[in-house]
């Protein structure tokens, strides 16, 4: 079968790095970490992105170097043109907005003609020489980049965060996409992964991923609805849970509806106010707009927990914009926006052939579901109190980690779990008269396929053109053009005689694959694809972020730094251990051994040999296992004697949060 694109062969780096090595984290105790295949789960969000993996039987989010689980999906170009990602990029939005970009997800897989609305509301600066039908290019300082390249920078940051955490390269990932993403948007996401040096094992729909994270712990049967209102996209998915099978029955959504829309509304109101009250037109002042944006986002978040909030924004020329917004006013303002989620929910019910009363559970996903008004709307629509047990910002990434674990062969926790997802949009082909003939209907379980037969209209005709569309409308011009295929090399025959069998297959990623065969001659017909909104293979190859050799070099450097840090930690922990009562319980020989290993580690730590340092750390770790056990016993027994665990020196343990913990709301 010929794919749309040949898959890039990402070099498989299955180097098992120190499987089962003991390490002392920030705690004085040895903690067993299993390093297996390291397939990570990534939530590439409009506002924030996260990377997670299965630690034993539990999915955990891997924090960035600033300790934060969320990496803001902001990319900036630093003073020396180096890319800056995440929290540290945020200040560029205000200081040098022409060198920063956010919400890039809105542009993934889209053409210039379908982003006109976006351009009015977002400060995207397009390259001047952009042609219709071309892949978008965004200006970032003096550079221009396509949306997949900018997303790839975010992905690479997440990849690095994971590599730092594991102390090993990460090359495979599951990436989530909005369920309602079309083929082009999915392909663009997959391209971003490739550009970042990741083999994308699967694209998973965000609401379905969330259901996996929830289902991991509950494992019960029933009908579940996932309402996912994020920064820029809205999805509703209805699933049937049956003995570990997560079968999506219907999905619907809007890939341009989310918290961004609320922000933009508040910004517009503020700008109008400022023009009216202060007589200043700031609409063209990018710095001021970003300062207002920052303030209204903070106000929006505060209004989820407070009855009113005071805006006080410093403007150019020493002016100030002050305004109080009550929750009531806020709710009135956003009503039209959140009401836009009702239509897709109703359609999903209809497609699933279910009534709201038949839903057993409703799960909320996405930061925008923290808004009380949104919760009230969901409660009303689904006739029940929605679940909010898991942090709505993290649940998608945790689910992606669960899926990554399933793809990697599964574990005790994911045993019997299988996701059966659907295609959100019907696939059609253009037939005579500009009409769409639907060949795979929306909500069909994927992988799904359809076979069509084509013939020629004139004698000796060698080519047949096929126009593939995605969407629900009757006319081809109202649907989304996916690609034009040219069937070539049909053997010369009289008109109407050739019988070309074309197989359309939507794979488990929701991406279309096409193959063709001329039946009379049995000849495989050649397919030439012109994706309507995508990068070609060659383009993607040319974009792959730094060569792999460079990445290896970078990785070794980082590995060395990490190892040295670990040395510091373990030596400090050992010093502490020597002062504990447990130290006295060791034999003289044990103490001697430890002292020898300590000296060896201190010695190799001065050299640049990573392997030697690693070996010395592992040796000391193993050598101090009994000490750590004794200390653990002491700690536990002193706790039993009435001391609290906090008083005994337990250290901080692992920094990754427990995913089943109560959601934290800001």
């Amino acid at each position: 079968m010929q794919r749309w694109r040949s898959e890039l062969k990402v070099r498989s780096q299955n180097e098992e790095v120190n499987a089962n090595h003991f390490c002392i984290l920030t705690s004085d105790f040895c903690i067993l970490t299993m390093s297996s295949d390291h397939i990570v789960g990534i939530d590439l969000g409009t506002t924030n992105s996260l990377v997670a993996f299965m630690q034993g039987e539990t999915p955990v989010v891997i924090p960035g170097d600033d300790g934060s689980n969320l990496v803001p999906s902001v990319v900036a170009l630093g003073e020396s043109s180096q890319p800056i990602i995440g929290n540290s990029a945020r200040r560029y939005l205000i200081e040098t907005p022409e060198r920063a970009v956010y919400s890039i997800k809105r542009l993934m897989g889209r053409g210039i003609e379908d982003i006109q609305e976006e351009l009015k509301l977002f400060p995207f600066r397009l390259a001047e020489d952009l042609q219709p039908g071309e892949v978008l290019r965004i200006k970032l300082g003096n550079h221009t980049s396509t949306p997949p390249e900018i997303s790839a920078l975010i992905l690479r940051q997440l990849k690095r965060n994971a590599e730092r955490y594991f102390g090993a390269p990460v090359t495979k990932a599951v990436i989530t996409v909005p369920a309602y993403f079309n083929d082009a948007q999915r392909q663009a996401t997959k391209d971003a992964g490739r550009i970042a040096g990741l083999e994308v094992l699967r694209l998973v729909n965000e609401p379905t991923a969330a259901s996996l994270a929830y289902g991991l712990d509950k494992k019960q049967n029933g009908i579940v609805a996932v309402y996912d209102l994020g920064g820029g996209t809205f999805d509703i998915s209805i699933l049937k849970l049956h003995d570990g099978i997560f079968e999506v029955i219907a999905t619907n959504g809007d890939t341009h509806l989310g918290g961004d829309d609320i922000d933009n509304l508040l910004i517009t109101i503020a700008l109008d106010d400022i023009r009216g009250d202060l007589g200043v037109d700031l609409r063209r002042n990018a710095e001021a707009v970003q300062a207002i944006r920052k303030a209204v986002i903070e106000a929006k978040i505060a209004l989820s927990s407070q009855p009113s909030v005071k805006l006080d924004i410093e403007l150019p020329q020493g002016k100030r914009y002050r305004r109080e917004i009550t929750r009531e006013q806020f709710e009135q303002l956003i009503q039209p926006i959140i009401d836009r989620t009702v239509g897709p929910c109703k359609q999903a019910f209809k497609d699933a052939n279910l009534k709201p009363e038949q839903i057993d559970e409703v799960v909320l996903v996405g930061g925008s579901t923290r808004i009380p008004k949104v919760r009230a709307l969901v409660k009303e629509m689904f006739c029940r109190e929605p679940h909010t047990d898991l942090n709505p910002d993290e649940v998608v990434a945790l689910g992606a980690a669960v899926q990554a674990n399933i793809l990697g062969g599964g574990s005790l926790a994911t045993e019997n779990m299988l996701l059966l997802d659907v295609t959100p949009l019907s696939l059609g082909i253009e037939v005579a008269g500009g009409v769409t003939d639907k060949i795979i209907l929306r909500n069909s379980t994927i992988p799904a396929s359809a076979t069509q037969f084509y013939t020629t209209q004139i004698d000796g005709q060698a080519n047949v053109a096929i126009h593939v569309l995605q969407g629900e409308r009757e006319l081809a011009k109202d649907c989304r053009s996916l690609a034009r295929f040219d069937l070539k090399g049909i053997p010369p025959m009289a008109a109407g005689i050739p019988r070309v069998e074309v197989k359309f297959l939507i794979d488990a990623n929701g991406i279309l694959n096409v193959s063709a065969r001329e039946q009379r001659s049995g000849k495989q017909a050649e397919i030439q694809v012109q994706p309507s909104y995508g990068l070609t293979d060659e383009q993607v190859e040319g974009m792959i972020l730094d060569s792999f050799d460079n990445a290896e070099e970078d990785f070794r450097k980082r590995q060395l730094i990490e190892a040295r840090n670990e040395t510091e930690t373990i030596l400090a922990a050992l010093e502490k251990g020597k002062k504990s009562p447990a130290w006295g319980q060791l034999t003289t020989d044990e103490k001697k051994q430890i002292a020898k290993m300590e000296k060896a580690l201190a010695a190799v730590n001065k050299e640049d040999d990573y392997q030697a340092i690693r070996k010395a750390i592992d040796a000391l770790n193993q050598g101090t296992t009994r000490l750590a056990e004794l200390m653990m016993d002491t700690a536990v027994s002193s706790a039993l004697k009435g001391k609290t665990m906090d008083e005994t020196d337990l250290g901080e343990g692992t920094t990754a949060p427990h995913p089943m913990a109560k959601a934290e709301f800001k």
Partner: protein
Amino acid sequence: MTTKSTLTAIGSKPLPDDTHSCWSCGDMRAAHFCASCGKVQPPSPVDYFTFFGMPPKLNLDVAALEKDFYDLSRRLHPDLNARAGSQEQEWSLEQSSLLNDAYRTLRDPIKRTEYLLHLEGVALEEQSKAATERARATGEVKKQIVPPDLLEEVFELNMQLEELRMNKKMGEDDPNLTKEIAGHKIALEAKHDALLQELQTYWTDWDSLIERNHGSKAPAEERAKITAKMVDVLNRRNYIRNLVRDVNAALEE
């Protein structure tokens, strides 16, 4: 067409005679996947009934079908074969798409009937909206016959729908008209249900024909007699369904 099960590893179904040897371990217990080593096998071009190891009968236990679907998904789905070689992954993709297509078709009574008719080489009239649009665009005459017993009612209903659309355009509202149309709708829905009942009697006729012939092909004329009845019912049913859809659209507009 065989009536024997090809699902060797599901439940207590008997081993069929036509098992193949597994490409991987060589054991003679392979259909879609090898019962011995679990490896996915290359797909063979079979119809949807055969894929599920069932005779082509129309009265079907949907709950059992669902169970088979889940069981086979656990073997064939690409997620569970993600670590296999590229050839096996390819087979897994094709096998599981075939499984999904087959399940989607067979679990739905109408799609199942239409699929059987397709296997029997019988064509249905095109009643889809797309077909209407296409006919309109190309100027071809659409193959659509109004069922004779509905002629009068359809004529009246179409007049009323036209009136309703005119009223809505002018911003007027005629409660009596809406009530009459709603009455037609209820009558049509009752007819629709009656047709489904009728269809089920032909299913039973078909199934007993298959049983009588113990899996070997029943005589063509006997098959054609039953399929002709099914085609007639389906055409009338599709016609009514489209009418109901038009009525709903007009009332909601």
